[in-house]
């Protein structure tokens, strides 16, 4: 059964990547941006005609489904070309196409060499991301997952700042080792299921593990329970690097600081979501009993990420580093929501992925616009930017308030759902879940710290007398720098005041996951 829609979406992006790369540097920027409108419009069209129900892995009907056996491999699980979209992946697909187009526009000013390669790689990255969020066969999904890593390595390593080599290699090593651990863990689990699964299709594995409760058996020297826990740990460790969760987050600030603005936007906006998306799809959907039994540990990781990430942000003087560490903090909320296992917890986590994608994208982009003219990102180097760049600064402040969770902006809705869900989890009749409100209460302090460092940094840099030691002329940013910021702000407010435009489908797909622990509705 081939639907062809998702294939067309990925293929057109990939072809665009090759076309741009083969073309000239002179028109690469405009060509890539124009080309990225095709997947953007395509994904919006898919959203308009979207008709999926339920969760893709738990018996739901996915939209735009294609499923064909690709490689039949004897005793090993068959590999299928299996793609489809449900309520969790649809918003992420739209987020990807929107952010890529905006990031491409934001690259016009800072990227001034080897443009065709840069824009081509970004489109290649987009193709990989679309694959990650739509693939429903583990092998295919993993190929896309890694296909995202390769262009990111070059985007940081070639176009990055002074320590780009260090940052790129650190990111590459961290995430590759994580991928290896995760891949080995998951294949061990699937091999362990033996004849219960015949393909790498994720729904089939989820069905065997969750619905039929088949116990793994094939690896002779471990028993079923150990294998499940080991697989969960390997998957969690692998995805934790990508999210990232403290203490494996250290690659992220380096990568962000060195990466050029558009790459930071995509890194924070979409790539981190790969980690949380995978956690939701694999750990929390396929192995709920392990997740439930270890809830306090997972919630503790979440709370540490939230608080420690925010404290680190408080200590930074580089604007980009501040936003980078606050991303670590924000992603902690996603983990907390997942650990809660309620409808609002899981749904809120999925919603936070989209919301944080937009807000962190806006923050990185705004910092980048300021950097384009000042050539510094140090809080201590500048003050009074508001008088020189009123529009950019205005949007930056609005975005920061979104970050802090101002009502009517998407950050508020997301964090509200997560906290609501996490508190509700305390009512579960499951061991340890009475601790959940305590974890949540601690996590809520994160918001206070966020407000602290963002307000502090803004007060120092944006307001007061203008002062900046620079040889560059500081003036208003060009329209094409501000336009993507404005678009993002509109989207953040739209999503904040009408969260149901995404939350409805998210709820549809999150319900079955929450039901696994009896926390639905």
């Amino acid at each position, binding site marked *: 059964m081939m639907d062809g829609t998702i294939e067309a979406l990925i293929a057109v992006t990939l072809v665009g990547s090759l076309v741009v790369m083969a073309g000239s540097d002179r028109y690469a920027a405009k060509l890539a941006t124009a080309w990225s409108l095709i997947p953007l419009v395509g994904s919006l069209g898919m959203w308009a005609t979207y008709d999926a129900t339920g969760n893709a892995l738990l018996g739901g009907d996915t939209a735009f489904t294609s499923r064909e056996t*690709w*490689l*039949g*491999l*004897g*005793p*090993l699980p068959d590999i299928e070309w299996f793609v489809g979209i449900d309520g969790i992946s649809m918003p992420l697909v739209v987020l990807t196409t929107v952010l890529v187009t905006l990031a491409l526009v934001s690259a016009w000013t800072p990227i001034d060499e*080897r443009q065709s*390669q840069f824009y081509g790689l970004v489109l290649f990255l987009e193709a990989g991301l679309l694959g990650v969020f739509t693939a429903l066969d583990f*092998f295919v999904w*993993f*190929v*896309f*997952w*890694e*296909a995202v*890593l*390769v262009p990111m390595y*070059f985007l940081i*390593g*070639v176009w990055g700042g002074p320590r*780009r*080599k260090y940052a*790129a*290699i650190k990111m*590459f090593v961290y995430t*590759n*080792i994580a991928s*290896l651990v995760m891949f*080995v863990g998951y*294949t*061990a689990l699937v*091999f362990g299921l*033996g004849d219960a699964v015949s393909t790498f299709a994720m729904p089939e594995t989820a069905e065997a593990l969750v619905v039929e409760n088949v116990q793994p058996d094939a*690896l*002779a*020297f471990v028993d079923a329970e150990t294998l499940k826990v080991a697989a969960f740990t390997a998957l969690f460790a692998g995805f934790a690097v990508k999210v990232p969760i403290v203490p494996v987050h250290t690659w992220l600030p380096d990568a962000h600081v060195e990466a050029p603005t558009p790459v930071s936007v995509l890194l924070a906006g979409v790539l981190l979501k790969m980690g949380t998306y995978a956690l939701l799809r694999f750990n929390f959907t396929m192995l709920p009993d392990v997740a439930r039994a270890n809830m306090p540990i997972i919630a503790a990781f979440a709370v540490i990420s939230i608080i420690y990430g925010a404290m680190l942000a408080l200590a930074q003087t580089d604007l980009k580093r501040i936003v980078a560490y606050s991303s670590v903090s924000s992603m902690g909320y996603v983990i907390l929501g997942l650990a809660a296992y309620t409808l609002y917890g899981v749904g809120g986590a999925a919603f936070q992925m989209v919301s944080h994608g937009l807000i962190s994208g806006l923050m990185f982009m705004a910092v980048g616009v300021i950097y384009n003219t000042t050539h510094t990102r140090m809080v201590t180097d500048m003050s009074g930017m508001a008088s020189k760049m009123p529009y950019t600064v205005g949007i930056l402040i609005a975005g920061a308030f979104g970050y802090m969770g101002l009502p009517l902006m998407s950050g508020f809705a997301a964090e509200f759902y997560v906290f609501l869900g996490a508190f509700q989890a305390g009512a579960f009749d499951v061991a340890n879940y009475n601790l959940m409100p305590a974890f949540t209460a601690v996590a809520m302090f994160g918001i206070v710290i966020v407000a602290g460092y963002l307000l502090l940094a803004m007060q120092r840099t944006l307001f007061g007398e203008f002062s900046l030691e620079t040889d560059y002329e500081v003036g208003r940013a060009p329209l094409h720098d501000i336009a993507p910021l404005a678009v993002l702000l509109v989207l953040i407010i739209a999503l904040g005041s009408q969260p149901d435009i995404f939350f409805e489908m998210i709820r549809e797909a999150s319900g079955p996951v929450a039901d696994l622990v009896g926390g639905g509705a």
Partner: protein
Amino acid sequence: MADTTWLTLAPAFLLGLTGLLVLYVDSIGRSTKGPIAVLSLLGSLAVAGVAIALPDALGLGPAGWSFVSFTLLGMFALALFVQPGSQNRRLIAGLSTAGAVGALGVAAAFLFTFDGEPVNPFGDALVVDGMSLLFAVIVASVTAMVTVASYNYIAEHSYQAEYYALVLLAGTGMTLMASANSLVTVFVALELASLPSYALVAFLKENKGSVEAGLKYFLVGALSSAVFAYGVSLVYGATGSLQLTAVQNAITGEFTGMLGMGVVMVVGGIAFKTASVPFHFWAPEAYEGAPAPISAFLSSASKAAGFVIAFRVFTEAFLQVSESAGEFLVLGADWVLVFQILAVVTMTLGNLAAVTQDKVKRMLAYSSVGHAGYVLMSLAALSGGGATATAKIEAGQFVLAGGMMHLFVYGFMNTGAFLFIALAEYWDVGRTFEDFTGLGRQAPVASVAMTVFMFSLAGLPPFGGFLSKYLLFGATVNSGFVWLAAVAIVNSAVSLYYYSKLVKALWFDERPDDKKPLEISSRPVGLYAAVIFAAVVTTAMYGVFGPVSDAAIEAAAALL
């Protein structure tokens, strides 16, 4: 009706005949067109003969039949219409490539129309089955890429016809190795592949390194040939047979010591050809000193041919498969255990040595030793695990197929990597990692291709190497050898370090001030074509892998 089974060896014949043809054309020199006319007449006769005989030989459909004759016709047309002498270089390279591509086409056509019934030409001394055709495809693809790349690489050298003829004759030997079904034909084919290789390694006779490498390769090769021949004679002494299945039937339990010695010595001969421990030490020297296209040829095609012999000899002669019990009984010596040790030592040694290299070609040479270690797992993990007898047999078959699939992908990614080195040597870039810095800016297309090869060799998706490594390692786990797969995975993770070191040099590193700036003025067509072709195949492997994996699985099932 006359026996026409020999025609199933067409890929080998095509390679060999083209080699001779190249020499012949070269000998004509600037003389008249008379000999060419004779040649074309002979060619037409050959085409006619093939056209009549082939459909009978293999039951090929009209499509395969016309393909064969078209290829042959094309070859001879080339010989007829291109002026010898004035365009000698182009003619010779073109002819060689046409021969290799023709052999590839015939082998692929035979493989995809193969009905599962092996053909045994010349008594049972040779066999044409799924495995031999699959490896004929690998050898012919590598040969074709190497001849295309050599067009630029040896442009300035004399003895060009001899060079191409030797490549094609070595290719013939390797193709025959894939078909050898008796210890005698194994040995003859092995020598046919080896002797031209020695000369090719030493081809750059003005270059001390090349000559030294050739000598070293020859000495180690002669020694290992002697060991192998002695092993064969011991096996013959113990069993009274040389044909592989006859050897297996004749193993009775007598003369176990002599037979065991023989088996271990045969392992030695194979270790040389596949560049595995303990006969691996020629490889870094030979690959580094040889002209880079020859390094590509030896490390890809020659290694694959060595493995196909290993697969056939050990599974046909020294293994008894008990279908009902699902057991593999090793005969002679416990060679499965030997291969387990060799696999672990070879992959670990290859990878650790590669880490410490500061010369790129040498790093690739050691990486090639490491990959030999991975493929050895397919023999080391043979005593299959599984719940039922069928599952055990299936596991054994699949691990063998895994080795074949990895060799197939390796044939493209490794050849491409060495051909990129050939390109660098053509530009006179230098040898160390530092010399390669900044090449990404100067030659982005070739550097992208090299990046593909490096990541693919390391086993990163989305490139072919990930797929074949997953299949090989997964098959090893499926056979119950989790520890062996774990060693391989750790090794594979280590390998990413030295492969990405080159990627880093190509794209990220600034060129040190004391290095002369890169001067890249030319874009040699042949080298570029070969490198880009290899990169495209390495990346597109996911799309085309279905037929390859089916062929490998069927071929392995036929052996076990």
